[in-house]
C-alpha cells in the first residue's frame, strides 16, 4: 500500500494470478467458481483450495488478494453469498468487494475485521451515497462507476473520507452499473444476480456470406465484415439498424485506456487503479499488468507515461478514455 498509485489487477485462474503477481500487481482481485461474483464464466475462477494456494503465492511476494462477492443474492437464498464471505475471512483474504447492502451488513456484523470495499456494482457516484456506505458499513474504499470525469472525481474525493479506486483499462460498461437489464432482457440472466453478462450458453457465431454474425439468444447482435475487428457479443456493443442505417447505438466495441491520464488521476486523489479483465487469459493479464506497472512507476518518478503498446489486445482493437474526458459535453 506504499505505492502512490496502487495497481489492482484481475485473475480468472491461478495461472493469471501468477502472471499478475510476477508482473508487478500490488493487489489481485478474483472470485469463487459460482454466481457470487460478476464474472461467473464457464471454466473460470477459483476453488477454495486454489484460493488458499493463491493467497500463499501472492502474500509471499508482497501482493494482496481481494475477493469479489459483488453480485446481489437471489431472494430467499443468501447462503452461497454468506458462505463466500465466511470462507474469505477464514482463508485470510485482504478484503472483500461487495455491492449488496445486506451482504455489507452481514460482513460488518460477522467479520468486523475483514476489510470491505464497495464494488462498482453498487454504482455509488456521489458524496451522499458513498458516505452512507462508509457510515453504515465501514467501507474503506469505493470503486467508482465509469461515469465520472476527472474534475468530478477530484471534487468527489474532497467530500468523502474514504479511498477511491478507478478503472483505467479494459472492457467498458456504458450503463448505470449494477442496474443493467440488457442481458437479462435477452437471455434471462444478468451480471447482477447470475454473475454473467451475455452468457456464453446463449451466444452463437455464424458465418453468412463472408460475414461473421454474432447472436445472443434470439437477437442478432452484429455482423462483422471480412477482416473487421470483432467485439464481445453484448447488447450494449451491438450494431443495430435504425432509419435504414446500421450503427452502434450504445457503444462501439472498444476498450478503456486511461494510461495517459494517470498523472491527473493521481492529482485528483485516486488511491488505486483497477484493470478490468478476469475473463481474459494469462497472456493478456501479464502484458497489461507489466505495462501499467511501468506507467504507474513513471508517474511516481515524475516522468512522462511511456507508450504502452496494448492496441492489439483490446476489444475491437480500439481504445477510448471513456467518461474521464467527456468530450461530448
Amino acid at each position, binding site marked *: 500500500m506504499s505505492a502512490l498509485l496502487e495497481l489492482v489487477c484481475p485473475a480468472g485462474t491461478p495461472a493469471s494470478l501468477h502472471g499478475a503477481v510476477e508482473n508487478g500487481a500490488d493487489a489481485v482481485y478474483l472470485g469463487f467458481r459460482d454466481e457470487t461474483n460478476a464474472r461467473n*464464466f*464457464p*471454466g*473460470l475462477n477459483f476453488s477454495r483450495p486454489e484460493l488458499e494456494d493463491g493467497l500463499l503465492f501472492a502474500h509471499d511476494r508482497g501482493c494482496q488478494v481481494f475477493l469479489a462477492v459483488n453480485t446481489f443474492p437471489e431472494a430467499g437464498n443468501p447462503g452461497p453469498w454468506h458462505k463466500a464471505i465466511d470462507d474469505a475471512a477464514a482463508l485470510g483474504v485482504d478484503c472483500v468487494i461487495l455491492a449488496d447492502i445486506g451482504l455489507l451488513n452481514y460482513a460488518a456484523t460477522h467479520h468486523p475485521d475483514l476489510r470491505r470495499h464497495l464494488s462498482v456494482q453498487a454504482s455509488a457516484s456521489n458524496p451522499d451515497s458513498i458516505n452512507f456506505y462508509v457510515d453504515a458499513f465501514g467501507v474503506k474504499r469505493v470503486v467508482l462507476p465509469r461515469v465520472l470525469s476527472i474534475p468530478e472525481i477530484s471534487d468527489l474525493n474532497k467530500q468523502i473520507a474514504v479511498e477511491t479506486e478507478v478503472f483505467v483499462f479494459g472492457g467498458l460498461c456504458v450503463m448505470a452499473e449494477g442496474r443493467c437489464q440488457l442481458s437479462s432482457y435477452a437471455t434471462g440472466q444478468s451480471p447482477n444476480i447470475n454473475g454473467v453478462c451475455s452468457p456464453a450458453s446463449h451466444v452463437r457465431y455464424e458465418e453468412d456470406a463472408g460475414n461473421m454474425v454474432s447472436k445472443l439468444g434470439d437477437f442478432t447482435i452484429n455482423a462483422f465484415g471480412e*477482416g473487421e475487428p470483432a467485439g464481445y457479443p453484448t447488447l450494449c456493443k451491438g450494431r443495430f439498424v435504425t432509419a435504414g442505417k446500421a450503427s452502434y447505438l450504445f457503444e462501439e466495441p472498444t476498450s478503456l485506456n486511461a494510461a495517459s491520464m494517470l498523472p491527473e488521476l493521481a492529482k485528483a486523489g485516486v488511491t488505486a487503479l483497477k484493470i478490468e479483465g478476469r475473463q481474459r*487469459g494469462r497472456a493478456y493479464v501479464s502484458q497489461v499488468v507489466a505495462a501499467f506497472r511501468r506507467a504507474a512507476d513513471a508517474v511516481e518518478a515524475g516522468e512522462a507515461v511511456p507508450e504502452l503498446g496494448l492496441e492489439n489486445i483490446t476489444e475491437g482493437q480500439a481504445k477510448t478514455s471513456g467518461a474521464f474526458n467527456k468530450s461530448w459535453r
Partner: protein
Amino acid sequence: MFSSTMIPPFSPVLLGGLAARGLSPKILQPALRHAMKTIFQRHPDLFERLSHMGAPVYLIDPIDLPLAFVLYADVHNPEIEAVRSAEGVNACATIRGPLLSLLRLLEGRIDGDALFFSRELVIEGDTEAVLALRNTVDGVEVDVMEEILTAFSANLPRPLSAPMSAPVRLVARLGQGLFARAADDLSILHTALTAPLQRRVDAQAAQLEALKGAPARTPSKPRAKANQRTLREGREGAQI
C-alpha cells in the same frame, strides 16, 4: 483445413503440411497418445474445470495443416486423435486458426479474446464449451516444448536419459530458432510476391475514396431542357 473461408498464413507449417499431404494421420496417433498421456500425468487436473460438462468433444482445426484434431476432454481419460475429415466426428464445437496461434493459445502465450477480436480464431458450435476449454487450458500452464522434451528424455534408456537431456534441449532450441527464421523469410517472400498486387489494390481503393468524395456531376443539357419543360408546364398551368 476444413474451412472454406479462412486463408492460411504463408508459413513453414503450411509448406510442411502440403508436403505431408499424402501421409495418413494415423501415423501421428502413437505420438499424440503419448503426448496426451504425458501432459495428463504432469497435470492430472487438466480438464477438472470441464467436469460439469461431462466429456465434451472438440474439433481443433489448424487451417494450415491438411488434417485436424479431435479432443476428447474426458476429466479422467482425455484423448486426442488426428483426422483427415470431420465426417463422423460428433464435436460440440470447432475451433479454427493457424497452428502456431493454436499452440500459443494452448501455452497461454496469447490471449484467446485478442485472437478472436483480430479474427485470427474462428469458433463454431457451443460457445460455452469453447469458453470453458479456453479458460481450462489457460489455467493449466502447459509448456508444449517442455512436455515433449521431458517425454522424450523419459523414454530414452536410463543411462542415456540424464546425459542426453541437455543436448536434446540445445537441439530443440536451435530448431526453434531455425523455424522462427524460416517463418520470417517466408513472410518477406510473401510480401515481395504480393507487393505489386497490393499496390494496385491500394491505388484502386484510393480512387474509390476520391470518387466517393467528389460531387455528383449531372449532364447540363437535359437539366436545362427539364427546367424549360417545368417552366412551360408552369406557364401552361397558370394559363388554365
